[in-house]
């Protein structure tokens, strides 16, 4: 479902003397349906960079990134928009929403964008918020005022609202208590069981051991310094 072939990435900082910083070269990786692959490597090694290239908000310098038959590295914006709407989900570490929108609608939005009727979308949102232990009295409020852990759970509920065939998870269990961590791990296991291909970053080793079928060390993709 995800197939990364010979991907390279560099940043050109035009306003800092046009410095070119190569950050990745020769990245290869495949994730099949029903499989969860964890990215490992020290902070700054390129885990998030690789994940963002799959999501499409970072441009790959070369190589191909096939997601469900679309090469994200070459695709037109509208193809990536369609991919994200229907196929590719992303749970980032940060919740980014229009202020003042109620939590229930924030979670239901990915389904509304797919044309799911409002009552069904809200029912699914309510089910997930309840599972993630967000008290019902908060559902009508904007999540922008919530605690960090609550915001993260809202973000996870939003990410799992639609049953995406491919998912990217960036530290989904960070800053969660034991009960909610368990809920999130169960959600991931359920997604795998229905055939979702998952690429994730987990600093929580126990969580990683439990849900990941394999790990890939991104340090193998660090560009070699020319001799």
């Amino acid at each position, binding site marked *: *479902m995800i197939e990364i072939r010979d991907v390279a990435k560099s*940043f*050109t*900082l*035009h*306003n800092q003397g046009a410095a070119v910083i190569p950050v990745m070269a020769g990245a290869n990786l495949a994730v*099949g*349906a029903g499989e969860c692959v964890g990215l490992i490597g020290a902070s700054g090694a390129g885990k998030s960079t690789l994940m*963002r290239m799959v999501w*499409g*908000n*970072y*441009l790959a310098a070369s190589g191909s990134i096939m997601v*469900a*038959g*679309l090469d994200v590295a070459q695709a037109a*914006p*509208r*193809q*990536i*928009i*369609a991919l994200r709407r*229907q*196929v590719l989900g992303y749970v980032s570490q940060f919740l*980014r*929403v*229009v*202020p*003042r*929108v109620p939590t229930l609608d924030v979670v239901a939005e990915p389904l*509304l*964008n797919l044309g799911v009727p409002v009552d069904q979308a809200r029912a699914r949102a309510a089910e997930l918020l309840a599972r993630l232990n967000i008290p019902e009295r908060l559902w009508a409020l904007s999540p922008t005022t919530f605690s960090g852990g609550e915001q993260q759970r809202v973000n996870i509920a939003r990410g799992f609202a639609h049953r995406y*065939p*491919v998912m990217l998870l960036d530290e989904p269990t960070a800053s969660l208590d034991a009960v909610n961590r368990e809920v999130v791990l169960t959600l991931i296991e359920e997604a795998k069981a229905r*055939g979702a*291909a998952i690429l994730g970053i987990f600093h929580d080793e126990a969580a990683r051991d439990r849900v990941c079928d394999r790990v890939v060390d991104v340090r193998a993709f660090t560009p070699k310094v020319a001799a």
Partner: protein
Amino acid sequence: MGAVDLSIWANVNEATPLLSVQGLCKNYGARVGCAHVSFDLFPGEVLGIVGESGSGKSTLLSCLAGHLKPDQGEVIFQTAQGPRDTVVMAEAERRRMARTDWAFVHQNPRDGLRMGVSAGGNVGERLMAVGARHYRDIRATAVDWLGRVEIASDRIDDRPRAFSGGMQQRLQIARNLVTGPRLVFMDEPTGGLDVSVQARLLDLLRGLVREMGLSAIIVTHDLAVVRLLADRLMVMKGGHVVEQGLTDQVLDDPQHSYTQLLVSSVLQV
């Protein structure tokens, strides 16, 4: 490939652009307004245009909406009767399209509203311009639309002068969308509003775009607004498009030096 239905790509790949712009140029004497702008806009897409004051973004929007005549280039709109170049279209026909297929939301609601006419009249007038004649239907539609933009129905007979800035802007949106356009041009729609009112307006616009399947072109200098509203982004400088792409790609991994400067100059977007 598993259970994914790949037919979604066929739908995406076969879509016809709603608006196709080719080599658009507009000069003001020796000064460049906008130069060699080309892009396609597809149904349901929201395109953001950002750039500093004087970058040509408002000039471009005016050319697209037919308020200014470009010196060169084509603006092909997919009408019900097939593709038409709105640049060479007769003025009467362009005006008819501006009342039906397009809408234009001005930064200052005073430019888009009739200030001496009641709120209901502002909305009803657009309907009458496209042939609605039955008073009760017009009033019912106006009440419905005021509700959708969160204006209480007991304000229907008040003039916009008596409204707050945010309410005026919402009324302008209702007036523009009541006739069910397919493309909306917006010039700094949230400019000049309190941040709390901005948020409400953004949420409203997102809902309307989704429910009506609207395409929109939004000119703004606010990167936070485009992040939340636009699927795609065009960055302009000195009349030229220096970079375009998926909104979060342009903001998170800008390629052009000017975009890098723009993004790094903002406090947290």
